[in-house]
């Protein structure tokens, strides 16, 4: 434990330097070097706070809750009831019982309702963690996604509804709207572009950029001191777009996520990662 705390302190100090360099507008190359240093540390469970979420998620998964007082251990995430290895690498996917394409968080909510008969209003209220507010979803996603670490994303789009969701996700990616005329493609359709000093991944073409991006979510966001999921990332991009707040777990976000996973297919999952 003391060891973990020590490493955490060292890591945060390192990240602190990175952030300061950023504020002083160091050249992107220097910043990239700083980032490399802590990327090298993300594989070390002792120094990545995201593993606290993994540990809590593991407990939550096995804890009996809800009106039925049962755990989530019979929840089928696509690989069979209770099978977690590789499940995240194949999500979002079509689930016949719900007749719907679902991402991990939608599926977890479904299992909480169907298997546990849990009152999920509170789960949704705590969807994004904050100081003094732990998110069950962030914990469960960290735990379950981590069970796919070292594996590669697959999105075979075998079911017609998966193909439809992909096509909707792609259309949403190019959908320009609202007060800034932005779409996702505004910021994520070219190589090597930046907004201010922040590098923008090119997500419209399949390949390394998309693979590295998707393979690193969920991630511990140092600037927010929280482990974040793709639901939060998309929420934050729509916020930057000056769009109204999108509904958590809405099907459009899942369609976008499936589109992104397809772009990042073949990318190695290494999560929870750690980012700015």
């Amino acid at each position, binding site marked *: 434990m003391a060891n973990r705390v020590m490493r955490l302190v060292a890591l945060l100090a390192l990240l602190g330097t990175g952030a300061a360099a950023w504020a002083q507008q160091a050249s992107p190359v220097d910043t990239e070097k700083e980032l490399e240093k802590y990327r090298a540390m993300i594989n070390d469970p002792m120094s990545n706070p995201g593993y606290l979420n993994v540990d809590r998620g593991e407990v939550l998964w096995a804890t009996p809750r809800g009106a039925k007082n049962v755990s989530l251990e019979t929840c089928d995430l696509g690989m069979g009831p209770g099978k977690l290895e590789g499940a995240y690498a194949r999500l979002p996917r079509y689930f016949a019982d719900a007749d719907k394409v679902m991402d991990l968080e939608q599926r977890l909510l479904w299992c909480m309702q169907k298997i546990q008969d849990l009152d999920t209003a509170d789960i949704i209220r705590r969807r994004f963690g904050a100081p003094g507010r732990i998110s069950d979803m962030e914990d469960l996603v960290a735990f379950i996604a981590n069970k796919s670490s070292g594996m590669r994303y697959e999105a075979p789009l075998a079911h017609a509804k998966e193909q439809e969701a992909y096509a909707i996700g792609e259309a949403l990616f190019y959908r320009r709207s609202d*007060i800034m005329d932005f779409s996702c493609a505004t910021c994520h359709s070219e190589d090597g572009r930046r907004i201010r000093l922040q590098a923008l991944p090119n997500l419209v073409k399949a390949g390394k950029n998309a693979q590295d991006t998707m393979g690193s979510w969920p991630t511990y966001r140092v600037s927010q001191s929280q482990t974040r999921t793709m639901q939060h990332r998309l929420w934050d991009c729509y916020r930057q777009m000056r769009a109204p707040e999108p509904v958590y777990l809405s099907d459009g976000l899942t369609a976008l996520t499936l589109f992104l996973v397809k772009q990042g297919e073949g990318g190695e999952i290494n999560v929870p990662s750690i980012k700015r």
Partner: protein
Amino acid sequence: MKTIVSVLLLSLGLAGPAWAQGTKPQPVDPAKLEAITKAMWPRTPQGWENRISFDETQKLCSQYRNELPNDVFEKVRAREVATVKFPADGQVLGDWKAGRRIANDGRGGTFTDRPMTNGANCYACHQMEPAELSYGTLGPSLHLYGKNRGFSPDEAKATYAKIYNSMSVMPCSTMPRFGYHAFLTEQQMKDVTALLFDPESPVNK
């Protein structure tokens, strides 16, 4: 040539996503897409009534992924030109010092911001004065912008129009239509135009 390349890629098994060889993703039914977006934003938040739009131009830019066919391009440009309103007194140059602050301000307008005057955040996409290193690269550098145009009043007026409605010049431009959407006020747009056209402005040094 294109076909030869794709045949080659096909035979190498490199022809993009796996489903390209089998079933193609279905084309999107516009009604379905509208229903999906409606479910993402079922209610208009109070005070956002004029901020949420999917107008005819946005619709076309989405549909054609910003690459409009020539005839559509000209039609959209004509429509956007008609929206541009110049200041009543014809004066498009404000205070470059205020413009300098506005161009650098990226706050305002998000759903987590309290109500405030929006910043323009031109630096998100453009290099402007060389001393400011925190600039993005989605748009071209605007360093020496006015100087390179001989500080011409006509050029200044055209630039005000560009800022008011970028698509009046370039349909489906990446750049927001700041005046069209009333994201910036007339005074703010005059001030950033001055930042680009005042000989004293650091952008022209």
